[in-house]
């Protein structure tokens, strides 16, 4: 009997190709979009969280100016730091793993006839520790280069690509505005960061020469990055830094700090809550596509109710049992819904795979959403395929035959 129902269902599917196709299409689109949307959302969230975490979770940033919510206003004129502050932190606070600056400026780099706009950072070797960055080729700065501020630079992969056409850049001289500087190292590729900026689009030079030739200001440092050793208490380190800086900046007892220390963790938390909202938003969009897809399928099914009711009338009049008719319709709905569901899953996952590889975000497979989407659309398909049939099969055959 089940075999019969299967044969009949397949015949009906083949016979009503357009309707079957539309039903399958509705389910495919619904399932695929929900899966792609949610998995991409989760991938993006993971990506953002990842790259934020990569910034360093046990990292502090010391900025001039009083602590406040939000960015420091430009008008506030607080005493900047200088090179000696960095040295003092390095020497006096043992719980620190690395201390560096990351003074930055947008600049035009020129090699031969090629001209490329990028960002130059004034750093020391601790910068590589904090950023957890290694060299692909060449070397880091030597002590004397750092001490005297020699015109040498280390470049990112994107600079190699843009200026050197991926050829070996070592020992080449590139011009950074007013001065020329020798390439001594090439950084490993880091890829895109949290918000899409290219992390490899950098030129690193010793802080001294940055101050002298680029910022034009011989001593000022606008922020200090410190990385703590594993397992030390953030609060204790913050307290130590605070005391040291107060002393160095001659702040009297009772006066407020004219600098502030920010914990990367707090920044990470703020950013993660933003990405969580993104995920929730995508979830809402997915829910809407569930509903829209569901209504689409429902429409296709309901539009054909008249015809199907008459068909059921004919079958009953010819001697079909109510249960045979229902089994046939159930099988038909299940077959259509599962074909649609399976294609939808494959499509959804493929879309996710393609998009994640193009945008270089992690592919996060979530079997939950696959199951939810599949089951939801199976239910929609079955409910709207089966229940009108059930209603028709319970009618008097003559009423079903005359249904309009």
């Amino acid at each position, binding site marked *: 009997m089940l075999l*019969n129902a299967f044969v009949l269902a397949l015949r009906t599917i083949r016979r009503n190709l357009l309707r079957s196709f539309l039903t399958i299409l509705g389910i495919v689109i619904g399932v695929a979009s929900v899966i792609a949307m949610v998995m991409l959302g989760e991938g993006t969230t993971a990506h953002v969280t990842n790259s934020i975490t990569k910034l360093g979770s046990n990292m502090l940033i010391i900025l001039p100016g009083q602590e406040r919510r939000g960015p420091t206003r430009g008008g506030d004129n607080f005493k900047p730091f200088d090179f000696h502050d960095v040295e003092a932190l390095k020497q006096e606070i043992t719980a620190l793993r690395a201390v560096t600056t990351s003074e930055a400026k947008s600049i035009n780099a020129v090699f031969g006839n090629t001209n490329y706009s990028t960002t130059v950072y004034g750093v020391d070797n601790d910068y590589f520790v904090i950023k957890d960055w290694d060299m692909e080729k060449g070397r880091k700065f030597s002590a004397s280069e750092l001490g005297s501020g020699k015109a040498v630079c280390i470049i990112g992969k994107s600079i190699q690509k843009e200026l050197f056409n991926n050829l070996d850049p070592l020992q080449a001289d590139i011009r950074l505005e007013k001065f020329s500087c020798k390439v001594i190292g090439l950084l490993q590729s880091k890829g895109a960061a949290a918000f899409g900026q290219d992390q490899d689009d950098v030129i690193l030079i010793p802080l001294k020469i940055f101050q002298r030739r680029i910022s034009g200001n011989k001593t000022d440092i606008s922020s200090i990055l410190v990385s703590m050793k594993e397992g030390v208490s953030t609060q204790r380190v913050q307290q130590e830094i605070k005391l040291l800086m107060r002393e160095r900046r001659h702040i009297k007892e009772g006066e407020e700090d004219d600098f502030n220390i920010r914990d990367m963790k707090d920044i990470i938390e703020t950013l993660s809550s933003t990405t969580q909202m993104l995920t929730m938003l995508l979830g809402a969009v997915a829910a809407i596509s569930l509903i829209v897809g569901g209504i689409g399928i429902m429409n296709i099914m309901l539009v054909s109710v008249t015809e199907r009711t008459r068909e059921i*009338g004919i079958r009953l*009049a*010819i*001697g079909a049992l109510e249960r045979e008719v229902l089994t046939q319709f159930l099988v038909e709905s299940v077959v259509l819904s599962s074909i649609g569901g399976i294609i939808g899953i494959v499509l959804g996952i493929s879309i996710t795979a393609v998009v994640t590889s193009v945008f270089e975000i992690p592919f996060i497979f979530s079997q939950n959403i696959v199951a939810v989407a599949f089951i939801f659309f199976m239910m929609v398909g079955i409910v709207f395929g089966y229940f009108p049939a059930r209603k028709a099969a319970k009618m008097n055959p*003559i009423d079903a035959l005359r249904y309009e």
Partner: protein
Amino acid sequence: MSSTTPLICLKAIKKSYGEGEAKTYALRGVDVEFFEGEFVAIMGSSGSGKSTMMNIIGCLDYPTQGEYFFEGVNVATLNRNQISLLRRNFMGFIFQGFNLLARTSALENVELPLIYRGMKAAQRRAKSLEALDRVGLSHVAHHQPSQLSGGQQQRVAIARALVTQPLIILADEPTGNLDTQNSLEVMKLLQKLNCEGITIIMVTHEPDMAQFAQKSVMFKDGCIEKIVENPHAS
């Protein structure tokens, strides 16, 4: 098969539609008996209740009042499944409006009752082709109803009714859409089936066609006016 038990026995059958003021009677008390092997014509003006009675005999519809016995069994005591099986195993129905499945080939339409009887595919196909051949349609076996003329559709419906070799064929105006030539062919076919032992109850407007039956039941306003034996029937 005792000739004392009629195959079909209607007792004081009434059928009404609507409630209260709007209540109309399609049948106002029909008493009639049909015996196995009979070929009966039902005649009467349009709206006199012929189709209504046929539907009740075919168990597609239920009387408002009165009792219907099929081979001595009160149909009211059967459940829906039993009634479906009754239709499946004993009856063939030719509808006034054909009621073929759309977008389904003539052959598949004819095969349908055999599928529900659980017949094997090959045998089913052979039988259906044979039935289509009997109504002269083997050349359009793979056409869909929308590609067939009204008369061809009617003949597909006839093939579908006879393919199961039922005990009884209920034909509601089987020649309604046919020209005289084809009508005569169909009547000859029905007559032949009758000779093979199939009971036939047929509604018709045309006295010429009624001539093929052994008796004619005349309907008027939901009642049987008279029953005429036909001396010419072969």
